[in-house]
């Protein structure tokens, strides 16, 4: 059933707009004065103030490569992350470890490891899929560049951002 809402009957004073206008002016000037005397809480001034300290543990920032505590690269170039990455942001060129290396017959290593940060959607699937705990999403979020090539993180950059990860990580955090 249709409800009929009666229009309110306005008095002459109300129809003259004046009370409403003055009321409005009063509200805005209150805001103005409060702001003028610094009593208003304003939004965070971004580049100077940042949220970084309040960021949760499970924050998904830029994907990075990590080394273990013996300064060895953990990645074995299995290419699982490249395969699972939904937007295909990861490009890996696997290489064989040099002959004198103890693991040369066992493992591969990434000769090139590029993540295109224009493509990356910060989904965290690469981290989830990695069998070696070599790739992690860290807390860097302000990834900028002036050219497309600058936005492609190469291996060096990825290790620089990633740093060292000690021991095994319980990475199946339900929030991540």
């Amino acid at each position, binding site marked *: 059933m249709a409800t009929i809402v009666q229009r309110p009957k306005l008095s002459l004073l109300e129809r003259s707009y004046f009370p409403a206008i003055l009321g409005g002016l009063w509200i*805005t000037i209150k805001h*103005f004065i409060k*702001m003028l005397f610094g009593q208003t809480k304003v939004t965070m001034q971004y580049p100077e103030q940042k949220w970084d300290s309040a960021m949760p543990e499970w924050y998904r920032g830029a994907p990075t490569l990590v080394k273990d505590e013996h300064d060895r690269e953990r990645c074995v170039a299995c290419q699982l992350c490249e395969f699972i990455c939904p937007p295909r942001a990861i490009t890996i060129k696997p290489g064989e470890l040099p002959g004198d290396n103890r693991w040369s017959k066992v493992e591969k290593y990434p000769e090139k490891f590029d993540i295109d940060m224009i493509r990356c959607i910060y989904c965290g699937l690469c981290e989830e899929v990695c069998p070696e705990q070599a790739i992690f999403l860290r807390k860097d979020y302000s990834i900028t560049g002036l050219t497309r090539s600058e936005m492609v993180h190469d291996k060096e950059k990825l290790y620089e951002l990633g740093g060292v990860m000690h021991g095994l990580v319980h990475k199946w955090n339900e929030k991540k």
Partner: protein
Amino acid sequence: MPSLDLFLQPEIFLVWTSALKTLVILGVVLTMVAYSVWAERKVSAFIQDRIGPNRVGWAGLIQPIADGVKLLLKENFVPGGVNKFFFSIAPSLAMIPAILVLAVLPFGSSLFGVPMVIANLDIGVLWVFAVSSLGVYGIVLAGWSSNSKYPFLGGIRSSSQMISYELSLGLSVVPVFMITGTLNLGEIVQYQVDNGWMVFPAWFQSGGGLLEITTDNGSMFGLNLGQSLLWIPMMVSFVIFLIAMFAETNRVPFDLPEAEQELVGGYHTEYSSMRFALFFLGEYAAMIAGAGVIVTLFLGGWSLPFIPDGSQGWFWGLVNIGTFFAKVAAIIFFFLWVRWTLPRFRFDQLMKLGWYVFFEVALLNIFLTAGILAYLQS
């Protein structure tokens, strides 16, 4: 020194002092225009609990310069299909009237014996109305020559707006002339110096006061019957004039020609770069000129109670000039404040308001003033 004598010959003296005044006023007003844009952004930000421009210079004070540079460097694009001639003169037509109005505004008493008004016309007020209404041509031509629907609608709205406020604007100041008996803006201000501001008639020269305190220089502070009676029509005039000024300068709540939520950018949708800037600055220049007219007609111009005028020394002359611009700034703040408070009127509402309410009230107000004046004289 013979050359100095030459400079002091009356005609030549008039020429170079006028030129100097023109330059200074133009400089001051254009700076004010730039900074009222800044003030607009700051005031709007503060009212909306934001900070506003704060990157360029301290508290964003260099922002207007940055904006100007940006607008200068942008491409001055002329869309195909426009009427080129009118398209290019429209922005100047919007800017020039606002600046011409400034010529007759007395922005100070006198400095070193030179009256602080560029052109002391006896028909000052008529000049103001004649010239400031021309501003609408800039908008109408811009809307029409752009050959695009939104500017066209803006132009049409602008003309419909003009015919609805112009009448009450003109009629609302008639009582002022009836009381002062002159159209010369300088003399209107002088009247207010002697007899109290139009909206604040708290001192007077002739006797007959209800309540009076005589000061040492002979003028009396207090209320007198005639002026208290005349204060009523003056307030009515003031309110109507103020509201009509909002319409004249295309400010919210009457910014129908622009109406960015409905008409994209209104009449200046197709404009870019410096041509757009001229419209934009013209709007603020018109606002300053309008505020100057309000101050001159109703708020006592450059005068403050008990502050002597420029004949008492250059210091007071400067104080008077400062007073004028301070009052103008206050009115501009009021314009900004209203803009960030009120929603826009629909244009049938505006026409209704203009024709059904303000026109009649202004007309009645004239008769009321005439009646009071006749009563006082008898």
